[in-house]
């Protein structure tokens, strides 16, 4: 039986992030941000990078958090694993959430831990009735423990499983319906995964349940080839967003209306000014979407 999900009258209920562009907070930029106080919507952090007891990470995050909205975007909960998410890791997250009161918490449709330990990567799972039940239970437990709604992100994938019997959009829609969680639409991941598995990216965006989307991610990827010489894109977060992904983003915003949007750039981190410029591009697209929405109402 499907659990009735809370009625979402507007996406404020999915998270409290402003519908503006944000960027991933990198330690290289702490001082630039505190000195320049840039006009940017929000910052995202990986909570795992702030799980030490004290020190400079907390010092700078406290100062930045005092001036900007923040989002906690976890990478370590292993929600897609067969095992329940670790209760000690959920407690670490709860401690950070209590301390920093973020406007949003999100995680990935992926796994990263197994009996052997933690793999420090977002690993793939088959999508079928069995894993839908597993992931539903895990999200319910996480939301209950953290005392808030979470967003779940569509992953970049490089392999498929014979065990899969559901389409990713269908799987995520079911998860959102059954748990009341919101979705984080990573448009770069859509481009990477659909290219890797020879699907149509525009069709994926078309079918995505936009009323569940509380945040959008944009990032750069690295091109490679698979064993047969087919394109294989790697979600590297080490460069600019490509034009094809910007095009998909415009398509998504057209369908969803303005949504909090993140530029992810985690490796080969550029100067603050370059990252800020990239975020401005998303901000411009969001602004015109807001103007259009306003015109429609007026």
């Amino acid at each position, binding site marked *: 039986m499907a659990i009735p999900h809370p009625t979402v009258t507007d996406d404020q209920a999915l998270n409290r992030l402003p519908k503006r562009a944000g960027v991933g907070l990198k330690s290289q930029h702490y001082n630039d941000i505190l000195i320049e106080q840039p006009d940017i919507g929000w910052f995202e952090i990986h909570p795992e990078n702030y799980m030490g*007891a004290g020190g400079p990470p907390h010092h700078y995050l406290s100062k930045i958090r005092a001036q900007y909205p923040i989002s906690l975007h976890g990478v370590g909960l292993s929600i897609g694993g067969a095992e329940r998410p670790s209760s000690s890791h959920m407690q670490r997250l709860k401690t950070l959430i209590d301390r920093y009161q973020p406007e949003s918490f999100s995680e990935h449709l992926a796994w990263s831990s197994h009996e052997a330990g933690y793999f420090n990567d977002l690993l793939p799972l088959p999508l079928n009735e069995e894993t839908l039940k597993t992931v539903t239970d895990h999200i319910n437990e996480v939301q209950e423990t953290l005392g808030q709604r979470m967003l779940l992100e569509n992953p970049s994938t490089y*392999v498929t499983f014979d065990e899969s019997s559901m389409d990713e959009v269908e799987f995520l829609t079911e998860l959102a319906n059954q748990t009341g969680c919101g979705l984080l639409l990573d448009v770069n991941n859509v481009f990477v995964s659909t290219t890797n598995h020879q699907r149509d990216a525009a069709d994926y965006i078309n079918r995505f349940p936009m009323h569940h989307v509380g945040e959008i991610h944009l990032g750069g990827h690295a091109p490679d080839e698979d064993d047969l010489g087919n394109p294989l894109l790697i979600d590297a977060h080490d460069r600019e967003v490509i034009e094809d992904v910007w095009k998909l983003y415009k398509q998504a915003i057209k369908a969803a209306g303005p949504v909090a949007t993140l530029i992810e750039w985690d490796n080969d981190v550029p100067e603050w000014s370059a990252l800020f410029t990239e975020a401005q591009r998303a901000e411009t697209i969001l602004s015109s979407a807001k103007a259009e929405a306003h015109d429609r109402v007026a």
Partner: protein
Amino acid sequence: MTAWPDLQAAVAGALRQPEEAPPASVSKLRGDVTANKRFNVYRNNVALSLINVLGDTYPTIKDLTGDQFFSTMARHYMNEHLPENPVMLLYGAEFAGFVKTYQPAASLPYLSDLAALEWARNTAYHGADAEPLAITALADYQEKDIPNLRFAMHPTLSLISSNWPVVSIWHAHQQDDTEAALQSLPEEGEAALITRPHLDVLVHPLNGGSFVFACALSEGAAFGAAVEAAVKLDPDFDIPANLAGIFNVGAVKAVSLETGGT
């Protein structure tokens, strides 16, 4: 069709066995072509990300051994010690012990102690914040009570000692001209006190007496007993200078009077 717990176990196993083919149900491409390259994206992500984590925590070991040597060593470490949890800030706790037994590094006998120094810096960086106590706090006590004082040390404090001049080696690698700095290494071993009183991690070299003194205090000995231990090793141990020193580096969090018992 394999159930997810079994399939996940097979994938987790294959991630750790680079020579093996991925599990049969993963990404058959065309006919019997297996998606080794595709599966290897995950293997590479796991290995490279953990090697990078270790390189960030042990920058001097990486600088000293070179990228290639360090990557291979880190890969072996990772195979033996997969992280126990997602807190990568504190991954690599057993690296110094591992380096000691890592055969290709046997010609660098100081490497393990240097790794211990870097680990101490890492734990100080991420350790709990606390305001260091100023030496003026001692004015609250009568002189006769000073020997019975016990010191609660700063939560970021570590004490390390080595038969090798690891503090000088570490210091040389922080200089622009590392090669020049390495020309004038002391002959004997070295010790250091590592702490983070405020934002910056500090590495203070200690002589033998000062090291014994700081160790005794941090193990809970009363001030008088710590001085005795230091004087036993170093008859010239300078009591006022060392007392001032331990406060000045920000290594003390609180003092209290021994209330009998042990």
